[in-house]
């Protein structure tokens, strides 16, 4: 990638596609890889009525070229050494949080890390195996799931939308040294951020990133 100066965990890029007739479409995608990784990875959720994501998922081939702008953002980022992580993901909002967990592992950080991940069903959980691997490792993150629509037989995780009681169990008491990162659809983000502040987390340390319908 020409001119890429590296990124910080949590940043995103703008992807711009230009059609033969000059029509342009641009979308933002979070970077999934850790800064330490050799290759830059984006995770794209294919939206059925999307304009860009079906092309990226179905049509794009190795060697194809497209425009990428970034890395973008300096607010929703975490660097090893800056304190414990409290991560709340709604759906594909896991992507920038995954970059933080990958960075934490690659940097050998032993700062606390807890993830609460809300998905519709078990099949919708992205990075399932990698998260299982990370959390099983010594000093790995604590990972809790809630499945809001469908649950496999014998499911022992949460089975409802995220609420204050769930956040208290998953994150423990508010830690003044910790930073919460909340990413997902607008409603998810606002509900979780409000609940965290209500539970005594410092509003200045509850960082949010809303995914909107323009993500298609």
């Amino acid at each position, binding site marked *: 990638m020409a001119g890429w100066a590296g990124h910080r965990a949590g940043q995103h890029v703008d992807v711009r596609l230009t059609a033969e007739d000059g029509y342009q479409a641009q979308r933002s995608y979070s970077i999934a890889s850790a800064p330490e990784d050799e290759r830059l990875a984006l995770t794209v959720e294919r939206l059925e009525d999307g304009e860009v994501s079906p092309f990226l998922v179905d049509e794009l081939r190795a060697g194809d070229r497209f425009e990428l702008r970034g890395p973008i953002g300096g607010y929703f980022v975490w660097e090893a050494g800056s304190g414990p992580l409290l991560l709340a993901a709604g759906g594909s909002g896991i992507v920038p949080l995954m970059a933080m967990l990958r960075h934490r592992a690659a940097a050998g950080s032993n700062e606390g890390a807890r993830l609460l991940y809300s998905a519709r069903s078990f099949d919708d959980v992205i990075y399932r195996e990698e998260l299982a691997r990370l959390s099983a490792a010594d000093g790995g993150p604590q990972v809790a799931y809630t499945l809001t629509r469908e649950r496999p037989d014998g499911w022992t995780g949460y089975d409802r939308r995220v609420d204050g009681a769930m956040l208290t169990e998953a994150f423990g008491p508010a830690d003044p040294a910790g930073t919460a990162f909340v990413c997902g659809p607008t409603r998810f983000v606002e509900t979780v951020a409000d609940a965290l502040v209500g539970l005594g987390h410092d509003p200045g340390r509850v960082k949010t990133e809303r995914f*909107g319908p323009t993500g298609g």
Partner: protein
Amino acid sequence: MDDGDLRLDGNAVGGLLGDVFGRETTTARGTCGSCGAVGEVATLVVYAHAPGTVLRCPACGAVLLRIVRDGERLWLDARGLRCLELRG
């Protein structure tokens, strides 16, 4: 889809703001001209689905920035913003 689904935050327009200001802008601190609230641009409420992009104060809802782009031209209306402190 109602208003709640269309509401984004300043992170989402970091690329566009980078074009306008020529630098990372989501960590810049803005002061609302209406209520005086101060906060990072990343925390502003953003509506980006219209032809233009509108950034509002999360505390009082006042419009702080409006950006409209048409090909090579770009308009910036910053009437609602009292001050923007860029860093770095």
